């Protein structure tokens, strides 16, 4: 071998040159923004999780394709996501959030169910920065769980869900104007589901405020299949308006029984969560004419685009719940880029606090239907429309924006 020392020196020099050409700050390469989705991916509400995950993937892919999110030092970080199943079960939800909080996840979007969100928010630190409170310091930005007033449980909980009392107050007032001869209301409610129960109370209060006489509530359970007794009472009472505060499975059953017993109210009002494809698939023509206030409809160019991309490339449906995932990701991007998040593995807890404080300061953002106002108790006041089931699709009946 000739000049082995020279060869070694040459090899080292070449290696140094190559390394120099490809070198970037190690810290910037390693940095990622970790956002975890938490929702129901199994059980009968799996469809919510599937749609939320599809929308999360779409929003994050678009952000990463555009270079990721900007960090405090000006470098950019890719967004990494996961989607964890909470099975619409409180214990499961708490368990997965505890696990995510013990890892390097910065924030979570979810959960699906109000009966998960309520106890979950209860394990978070009630007041941010309270040294005497050992609750989890982990920001959660909810997209779906809709039962009113939950975010006030903890300063680490944020929600971007429609404000049902506002929507139903407006809806019943509008219905009264359009149907002055409609005077009475009865409500059918799925009484063992937190959201449905809360919604029935909201409908009742809104109807009374609008001048309707509420004749009563008929109750059934989430997995009931036969509604002749309850619908028989509708038939006898002959209300002008019937409100169904139930999810698609029992809504469809009740509507079929109404058809059987020839119960034809002047107006039929449904639950916000039923303004989905699921209702159309399950109910068919029986859903025709049902009016629901909803926080999403493809009525703006951006809403149309997002709905189209999610449906075509991610095999999901954008509805009032999953639309919030897209909005939440956009809000998180803005807050992360402006609140000094470092994205280092050593700064996770500080970054969570920065993110929480940043989210708390958001007063308004651009949603898919228009401007979304943020309230003091970390909830959203979202634009909405009144949708009606027509020819097996949801169409906008009235757009108050």
């Amino acid at each position, binding site marked *: 071998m000739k000049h082995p020392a020279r060869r070694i020196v040459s090899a080292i020099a070449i290696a140094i040159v190559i390394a120099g050409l490809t070198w970037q700050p190690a810290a910037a390469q390693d940095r990622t923004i970790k956002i975890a989705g938490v929702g129901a991916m199994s059980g009968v509400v799996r469809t919510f999780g599937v749609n939320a995950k599809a929308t999360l993937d779409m929003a994050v892919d678009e952000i990463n394709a555009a270079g990721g999110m900007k960090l405090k030092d000006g470098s950019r970080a890719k967004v990494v996501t996961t989607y964890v199943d909470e099975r619409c079960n409180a214990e499961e939800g708490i368990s997965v959030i505890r696990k995510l909080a013990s890892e390097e996840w910065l924030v979570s979007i979810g959960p699906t169910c109000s009966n998960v969100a309520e106890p979950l928010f209860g394990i978070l630190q009630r007041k941010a920065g309270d040294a005497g409170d050992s609750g989890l310091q982990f920001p959660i930005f909810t997209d779906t769980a809709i039962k009113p007033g939950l975010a006030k449980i903890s300063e680490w909980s944020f929600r971007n869900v429609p404000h049902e009392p506002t929507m139903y107050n407006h809806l019943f007032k509008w219905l009264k104007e359009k149907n002055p001869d409609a005077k009475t209301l009865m409500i059918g409610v799925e009484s063992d589901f937190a959201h449905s129960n809360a919604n029935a109370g909201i409908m009742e209060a809104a109807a009374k405020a609008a001048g309707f006489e509420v004749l009563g509530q008929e109750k059934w359970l989430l997995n009931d299949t036969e509604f002749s007794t309850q619908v028989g009472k509708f038939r006898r009472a002959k209300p002008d308006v019937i409100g169904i505060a139930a999810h698609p499975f029992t809504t469809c*059953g009740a509507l079929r029984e109404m058809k059987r017993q020839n119960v034809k109210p002047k107006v039929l009002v449904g639950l916000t969560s039923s303004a989905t494809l699921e209702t159309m698939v399950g109910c068919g023509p029986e859903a025709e004419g049902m009016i629901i206030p909803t926080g999403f409809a493809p009525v703006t160019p951006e809403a149309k685009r997002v709905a189209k991309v999610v449906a075509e490339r991610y095999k999901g449906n954008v509805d009032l719940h999953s639309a919030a995932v897209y909005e939440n990701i956009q809000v998180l991007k803005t807050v992360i880029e402006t609140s000094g998040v470092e994205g280092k593995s050593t700064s996770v807890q500080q970054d969570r606090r920065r993110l929480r404080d940043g989210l708390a300061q958001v007063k308004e953002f651009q949603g898919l239907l228009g401007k979304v106002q943020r309230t003091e108790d970390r909830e959203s006041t979202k634009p909405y429309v009144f949708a009606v089931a027509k020819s097996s699709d949801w169409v906008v009946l009235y757009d108050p924006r």
Partner: protein
Amino acid sequence: MSDLALDVVQQALNGFLFGSSYALIGIGFTMIFGVMEKLNLAFGVTALGGAYVALLVFQLTRGPLVLVFLAAVLAAGLIGLIVEFTCFHWMPRDYPLAALMATVGMLFFIEEVIVHATNGMPRAFPAPLGQLMLEVGPWLVRGDLAFMFLVSLLVMAGLWALVYHSRLGLATRAVSQQPVAAQLCGIAPRRVNAAVFVITGLIGGVAGALIGSAVGNLSPLLALPLTVKGLVTAVLGGLGSIPGAIAGGLLLGVVEYQALYFFGIGYRDMVTYLLLFAFLVGRPGGLFGSKGV
């Protein structure tokens, strides 16, 4: 007649007819217990699985409803055979809890398969009788439930013929009464057991399709109620008694509807389970079983 009397009769009528769906499911539970003295908690979901396969056939072919119902029956029969193979065939015979727990696992497994295949969304199931309602004086009778009631009677008649007038029935009774003696006579108990699972699966398919068309929707939400109601029916009627399952189902339906009318939804299931406790304490053998155990 007063409104109250009209309503009470209407509720009894509704409960009686809807109870036939419980009866059909109860037959499956009771027949397997009668032959093997073991509970198959996956029977309700077997019926539901058959109905989902029927729905798939309908969506693919838009074919005649006879074909759809036939698909439900055959698919549930096949699922029944799979349940026997996985939950009973290989399980130790002297440890009955193993088979019971295996069927619990199978119940949730099949339910989750359905959830993943459908995303948990309810799916409209074809209803050949549509929303047919018959007026009988001041009362209304649902056409599909009346049809289901007639079918449950036919199923019971068919089962009676099978059990008492066929070689398979003879073998089934022999295995049920004296398994060792039956084996000594050349009867293969495992084959008989498998045949019973297929037959009950076929009945489950009939039940699943009829319940699907009566409800108008299929949903994984149905799996657990079918299981619980089928089990309660079988206990009320007397585990092992086919006429008992019919009577138990109808009784359960009537009690549920009256409880719903008089006490509301919050108490309906409480009344049902109080009835179950009352039977277990006072008449543990059920309506058609022995008085004592």
